[in-house]
């Protein structure tokens, strides 16, 4: 579903944020992307979803290069950034309808999915209010719903559990599992290692822009906890 081939990103001034990254995420995978602050997680995620331009390497989504046909790639991808900066001058329902229009979601699909996820996250009653009146967690929920209403083949999330209450976090985990059982793939970064350990079937650990290890969660952590493995790898 997602293939990252020799991806490197150099920022102005010559510093390499990501160096020769290779990853393959298959349909049905919940792939955790772990690393310390500034390791290159967000840079990679932003390049995957076509927000960040890059020169070295290539990224393919469902066999299509994001460089060659970004619109086709974006049509099957959903992205939730770490900070849900949404259009505050729109109401929740206006925003969701706007996203529905951009992703050409049919009227019936968008109505039923907005209702379903709105009720799941207990936010339907707030859809008529301006986003500027939402709390951080409510914005996060709205961003998640907007990502789900176009049934993405690839869901990319940057620190998705920050700001969510325990119930919403549980709901998101359930939805992620459902999506993957239906053949979608999920690639997400997190600092919450417990969540990654329980939720992900595969994990990649990145340090200073370089991939240190990756593979099935059980293989990466062995008999230790993911936290122990991560701390050991980061130290060495």
């Amino acid at each position: 579903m997602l293939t990252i081939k020799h991806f490197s990103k150099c920022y102005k001034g010559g510093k390499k944020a990501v160096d020769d990254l290779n990853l393959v995420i298959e349909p049905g995978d919940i792939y955790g992307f772990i690393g310390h602050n500034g390791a290159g997680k967000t840079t990679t995620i932003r390049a995957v979803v076509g927000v960040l331009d890059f020169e070295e390497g290539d990224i393919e989504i469902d066999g299509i290069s994001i460089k060659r046909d970004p619109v086709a790639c974006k049509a099957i991808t959903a992205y939730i950034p770490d900070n849900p900066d949404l259009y505050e001058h729109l109401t929740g329902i206006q925003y969701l309808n706007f996203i529905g229009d951009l992703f050409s979601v049919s009227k019936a699909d968008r109505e039923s999915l907005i209702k379903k996820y709105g009720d799941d996250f207990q936010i339907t009653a707030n859809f008529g209010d301006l986003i500027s009146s939402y709390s951080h967690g409510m914005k996060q929920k709205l961003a998640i719903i907007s990502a789900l209403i176009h049934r993405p083949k690839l869901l990319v999330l940057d620190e998705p559990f920050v700001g969510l209450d325990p119930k919403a976090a549980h709901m998101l985990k359930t939805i992620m599992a459902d999506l993957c059982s239906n053949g979608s793939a999920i690639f997400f970064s997190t600092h919450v290692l417990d969540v990654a350990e329980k939720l992900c079937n595969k994990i990649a650990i990145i340090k200073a822009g370089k991939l240190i290890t990756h593979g099935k969660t059980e293989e990466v952590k062995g008999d230790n906890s993911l936290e122990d493995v991560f701390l050991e790898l980061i130290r060495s």
Partner: protein
Amino acid sequence: MINIWRLTKIQLLSSFGLNKALHTHDVKERRRLLLLSIVILISVVMVGVVSFGYSFMMALTFEQIGRMDLLLAIMMAVASVIGFFTTIYKASGVLFSFKDYDLVMSLPIKTSHVVASRVLQLYVLNLFFTLMVMLPAGVVYAIKVNPGVFYYLMYLTTLLFIPLIPIIAATIIGSLISWISSRFKGSQVISLILTFAVILAVMFGSFRMNGSVQVLSDMGTQLADMIFKLYPLTSIYVDAVCSYQMGSFLLFIVISVLAFMLFTMVLGTRFKTIYTGITTSHANSKYQMKPLEAASPFFALYRKELRRYISSSLYVLNTSIGMILLLAMSISLLFISSEKLGQLVEIPQLSTYLSKLAPLVVSMFVTLSCTTSSSISLEGKNLWILKSSPVPKQTILLSKIAVNLTVTIPILMVSYVLLMISLRTGWIESLLLLAIPMIYACYSAMMGVLVNLKFPNLEWTSEVTAIKQSASVIVAMLIGFISLVIPFAFVLLLSHVNGNLILLGIGLIMIAVCSVIFRYIRTKGEQLFQTL
């Protein structure tokens, strides 16, 4: 006091991309900023030259009647009026709509000091206008009067205090408007209506005052009386600078500084209440799912962009004032002659311009209404939404252009019909009166997008920075100005050639320019947008 300076410095660094200019290592970026500095310098020189010429022409008349002090009095009043008008609609934005409010207010700094830093930001911007008006006037006065050393001392010192009172007056009105609007559900619309009402009322009032003005040469005392009565600080200022009265000098400074201190202290006590009122959205949390309307990506983007436009009173005021003035002029011309209107608005050549150059005069108002030059900057931290959407970037850019045309075209059409009636244009003139402003509307909207792509400012904390203090807005304004000055000059210089023929030529050239920009946006726009 040091905290006021620290806060002011941080805000000013984010204006005009100053901080970027100081810290970037990117050669391309540096080259672009150098180009921008040159553009700004050219603009400053151009405005300075015009201002000097204006002062010099007035000085010739005042010299004849032996009232050179009137030059400084008038120019000080002009600087104050400019300060007042440019502050009134951005005061609320600068004072209350900054995204780092939580951060700033949680710092161990007095609220009055936060207010003072915000007012000082307005002050620094207005000081620029004051210097542009007062420096040339001061030089002309010095040339003509050859005053003593006291003049320079008092003139230069008072320069720094001239913007304070107008800013405070405008900020009081701006804050009042914000406070009243915050009590209603549609606070932005109420704020917009109130601000428009105040601006139009002040304009109307000043025109009525001017109505009694006779020929400049025999009204020296009357004019002085009128200015001194309208703005008493002018009288104190003239006594200080022209007559070297130490008492007036000190009084002028004390009044300005005291007003500033008093204002910041009083507003400091109500600051949090007003901020909370303005920023708290009305939420009823009773929404029930209704059928939704599906639209094409372009229409969805257009609707989103239009909602963004209407949601900001500052954005609307800053970009629609040209069209409002055009409409006001078109309606006025139905009832009064262009000669009389020219006298009222103090543009004596208005009648000549309208008879020969009506399409270009109308186009001038259109180019003042460029919404696109800040439309990409205004995406700010929301840009990820558009960048991650499966929509060709040219569709996004075209939706921004469409909103600009929505602002200009309808008023343009109404004004066209009104002007056709009042100016009694022939069929060729009517065609040009419609076509040329239309072409300029398209040109201005597309050029604004292009300039904003080249000079984006996405890291603003207050939308005032994007709408009024960003490089793209200044560059687009200058390009718009140059694009009109050149055709104006052609028509005036080639007075022996048929004016309609020249206008037709200008129209064809502008169509060619538009098609080049359009093709550039289609081909390079995607790439430029992606690098944002």
